[in-house]
């Protein structure tokens, strides 16, 4: 039995197969509409996350399956002090697959150690969020037609953003990838990502502060939110936050086919006037997230759909 804890649990070939399946689902949704009939997903969300939970639930419903679960720790047995291990042992008796979000890092892994059903990590603290990374990969591949030979800009909070670290780790496995890392000094990429992931894999990258300096070179721009609570000094935050508001004026510096991604939620870092630009891909990204989760559920359950 296989679980999904980190995007690196899958080889490049396996990710290709998963994304091929997700693409087939995108183009032939009716073919998969009964694939999981009689099966149930348990969405065990110990902290609120409307988007990710609804994406998993939509994915299972689209496959003809059913959904059980809870959306906060207060409405689960965790409020009574039940361990994660005990909860998944119980849920294993009810459902065929589980998606777990937990504020404690490693909680889905602990569940997978005793689970009788496949477990998907739906986000564990600041640690991993593999289905977001798979969504990002699917979005880039669908829009650009490839996952190699491109320059990817990542902008905003590169220090604390788990989606950023996971995406970099996943993309360095493809050839011809170059990164431009755009962040304020205070939110630069952590040393362990720079040294253990980028330098270790000889991936070309540069770090810049101004978004305008990077925009002309980018094939993909991955925007993230600069979070006020990360700054010790209010003045630094005020100074930096305006650097990273992407608007139509700045976007004029970008290539005609640059794809703009964002894991959402957006606050003000992408101006709403960018939404109508054909390069804005962040809402399509949400749709790709459903396809990729459908593909993941089918893969982990071992469900094959004949042509």
């Amino acid at each position, binding site marked *: 039995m296989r679980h999904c804890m980190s995007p690196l649990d899958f080889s490049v070939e396996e990710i290709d197969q998963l994304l091929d399946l997700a693409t087939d689902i995108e183009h032939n949704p009716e073919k998969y509409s009964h694939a999981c009939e009689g099966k149930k997903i348990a969405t065990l969300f110990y902290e609120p996350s409307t988007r990710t939970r609804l994406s998993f639930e939509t994915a299972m419903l689209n496959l003809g399956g059913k959904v059980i679960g809870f959306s906060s720790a207060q409405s689960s047995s965790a409020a009574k002090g039940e*361990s994660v291990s005990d909860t998944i042992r119980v849920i294993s008796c009810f459902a065929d697959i589980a998606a777990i979000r937990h504020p*404690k890092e490693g909680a889905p*892994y602990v569940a997978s150690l005793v689970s009788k059903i496949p477990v998907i990590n739906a986000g564990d603290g600041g640690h991993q969020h593999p289905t977001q990374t798979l969504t990002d990969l699917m979005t880039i591949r669908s829009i650009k037609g490839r996952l190699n030979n491109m320059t990817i800009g990542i902008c905003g909070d590169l220090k604390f953003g788990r989606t950023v670290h996971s995406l970099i780790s996943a993309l360095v496995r493809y050839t011809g990838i170059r990164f431009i890392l755009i962040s304020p000094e205070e939110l630069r990429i952590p040393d362990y990502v720079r040294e253990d992931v980028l330098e270790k894999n000889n991936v070309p990258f540069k770090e810049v502060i101004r978004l305008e300096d990077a925009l002309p070179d980018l094939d993909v721009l991955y925007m993230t939110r600069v979070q006020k609570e990360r700054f010790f000094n209010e003045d630094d935050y005020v100074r930096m936050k305006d650097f990273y508001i992407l608007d139509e004026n700045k976007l004029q510096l970008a290539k005609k086919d640059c794809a703009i991604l964002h894991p959402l939620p957006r606050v003000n870092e992408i101006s709403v006037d960018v939404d109508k630009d054909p390069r804005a891909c962040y809402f399509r990204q949400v749709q790709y997230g459903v396809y990729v989760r459908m593909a993941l559920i089918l893969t982990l359950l071992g469900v094959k759909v004949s042509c």
Partner: protein
Amino acid sequence: MLNVGQLNEGVVLDHIPAGKAMDIYKRLKLDRLDCQVAMIMHAHSNKMGEKDIIKVEAPLKKLNLDALGFIDHTITVNIIKDGQIVEKQKLRLPKKLVNVIHCKNPRCISTIEQGLDQVFYLADEEHEIYRCRYCDEQYRSSKKKG
């Protein structure tokens, strides 16, 4: 000169950096062994100038060599039988540590889950870096920390 009784059966941990014997005594939980333990600190050493030595009157299997390897894999482990050194065991950095160190990341599941072993794996042998199996929090071996 200080004389400590000769060990007939047991283990001598030699070439311990001076001053670290007490740390090793605690980490190996030698106080819980039902046997004689002798600790010699700041002994003269041709190789090291000063060193510590621990003599334990217990079979090797009673000692957690993974913990010792994590603390300092350059320590010499001499196995004694009939008062003679019959084997010198080399220590290695263990690939996995179970319940030797605790994860200090307050966001790690190991801080709240009942009955969960504290598991670390060797992520980078050259730099002696371990990571928590649950949250990937990084730890350096005691020797590297200095």
